[in-house]
């Protein structure tokens, strides 16, 4: 029987949404008959644990310590590797900013590699077979993980949570074997401001064009970018940069400013070839434009033909509701 340890993430006592994806992915690996235990590290009580059973967790282990008030990389890696060692065939984490850091540490403590940022999981003849994007998403690599335990991090937003009811019993106990956070101490967490990210680095780019009619209306674009979260950034077409509405650093489409974010939202941009050349390698493209004939729709995966002054605020509101 395959046993999988699903390592979940909480912030300020609330389970992060990636956790259900991790439980779902773990259940894929364990198979219907296998065992999935979830492990949460926290300073105190955590809300949202009761529903984990619905997604396939046999048991939820909460290990508490005051050091887990914030992310404590060294102690967290210690507790997880102690729990995993000898007891599980696989350890699964979410490849969030924290999970990327923690997964490598856990794997190192277990003296095995990490199969990072995985988007496909399966098993073949008793071994784990996973798929993961490489070369900036231009190819997918298939790996067989023979190391035990197999340590795997899952790319967020890929594994849609699937209901698979299990007992989901919760066992809370103090974490043992650690005195404090360790040598690396998170002393502060500062809020990040949306829009500070360079367009070429952002995971989501929301770009505005001449369809916005005047510079002040770019507030709509900024609000939409904020609704997508901190990895979103504001971009602009060349027309509005040249008109002086937006700084040059935001311009997408000129040579040298080629962007390929996971999501590109073009608002009020007709899609001059100059612009298309700079963004067409984005993974998913959304176009919002009044003109059904606009070339941007030829490269868009999803389009809304409509008045951006109605569509954009509605989209911002919908996204804001979603993230709550």
């Amino acid at each position, binding site marked *: 029987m395959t046993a999988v340890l699903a390592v979940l993430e909480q912030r300020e006592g609330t389970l992060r949404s990636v956790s259900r994806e991790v439980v779902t992915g773990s259940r894929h690996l364990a198979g219907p008959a296998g065992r999935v235990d979830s492990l949460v590290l926290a300073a105190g009580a955590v809300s949202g644990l009761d529903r984990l059973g619905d997604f396939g967790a046999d048991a939820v282990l909460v290990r508490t310590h005051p050091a887990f008030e914030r992310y404590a990389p060294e102690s967290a890696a210690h507790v997880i590797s102690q729990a995993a060692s000898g007891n599980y065939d696989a350890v699964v984490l979410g490849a969030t900013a924290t999970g990327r850091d923690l997964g*490598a540490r856990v794997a190192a403590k277990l003296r095995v590699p990490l199969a990072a940022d995985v988007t496909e999981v399966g098993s073949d003849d008793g071994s784990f077979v996973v798929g993961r994007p*490489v070369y900036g998403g231009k190819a997918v690599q298939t790996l067989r993980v023979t190391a035990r335990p197999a340590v795997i991090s899952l790319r967020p937003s890929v594994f849609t949570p699937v209901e698979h009811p299990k007992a989901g019993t919760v066992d809370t106990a103090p974490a043992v074997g650690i005195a404090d956070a360790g040598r690396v101490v998170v002393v502060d967490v500062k*809020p*990040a401001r949306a829009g500070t990210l360079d367009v070429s680095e952002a995971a989501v780019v929301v770009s505005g064009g001449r369809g916005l009619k005047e510079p002040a209306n770019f507030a709509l674009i900024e609000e939409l970018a904020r609704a997508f979260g*901190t990895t979103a950034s504001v971009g602009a077409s060349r027309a509005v940069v040249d008109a002086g509405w937006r700084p040059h650093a935001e311009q997408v489409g000129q040579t040298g400013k080629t962007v390929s974010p996971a999501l590109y939202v073009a608002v009020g941009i007709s899609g001059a070839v100059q612009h298309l050349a700079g963004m067409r390698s984005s993974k998913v493209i959304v176009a919002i434009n009044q003109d059904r004939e606009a070339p941007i729709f030829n490269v868009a995966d999803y389009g809304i033909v409509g008045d951006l002054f109605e569509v954009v605020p509605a*989209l911002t509101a919908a996204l804001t509701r979603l993230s709550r």
Partner: protein
Amino acid sequence: MKIAVCIKRVPDSEIRVAVAADGKSLDEAAVKFGLNPYDEFAVEEALRRREHAGAGEVVALSVGPAAVQETLRSVLAMGADRALLLQVAALPADAWIVARALADALAGEHCDLILFGKLAIDDYNQQVGPMVAELLGVPCVTAVSALDLEGEQAVAQREIEGGIEVCRFPLPAVLTVDKGLNEPRYPTLKGIMAAKRKPLEVRPVELPAGGIEVLGLRLPSPRRPGRIVEGPGAVAELVRLLREEAKVL
């Protein structure tokens, strides 16, 4: 101050990916290789710290095939003092094996700082740095976008979803660095000339395959034709599609 920078030679990010005849690796015809862009920030940070300290040494290390010498030479041209290539025929897919080779080489160096780029743009593994730290028994902070050093103590910032974590840790330490930490320099003419005479040691190593085997490499499925959503429910439908079909939310 003694600083090690671990770098990787990677294919250019603009490449058009084609799969080699073996069905599991990149077809390297017409592919340009160079220094991993995040490693440039690591090299620059090492050079600045050495310059700020007024004394010390920057050692560049890499694991890879013979061609990596060219990449290490470019790091020497930027200003590193010497370089070491742990030469293998091909990098194993198992990063733990790579980390062990680097840690073995670093064990005798007694560096104050060991720097990596936060990720390599070819395999996105993001793990060799923390693994080297574990093997050497020193603290590690990943994806550092700001760094303050005061004697044996350091404070670093790293970006997480929705915020910036501020971490305190003692030296020596391993850091993996993110864009934004600095602006890398261009190699100077003098630097390029000097690099020709700087020591570049090539040490052949044998690495085991490890616990990960590459079964295949394939191109992602082609883009489907776009879809226009309309009507009063358009926004809700778009959000649903982005969530459930495109999976980007």
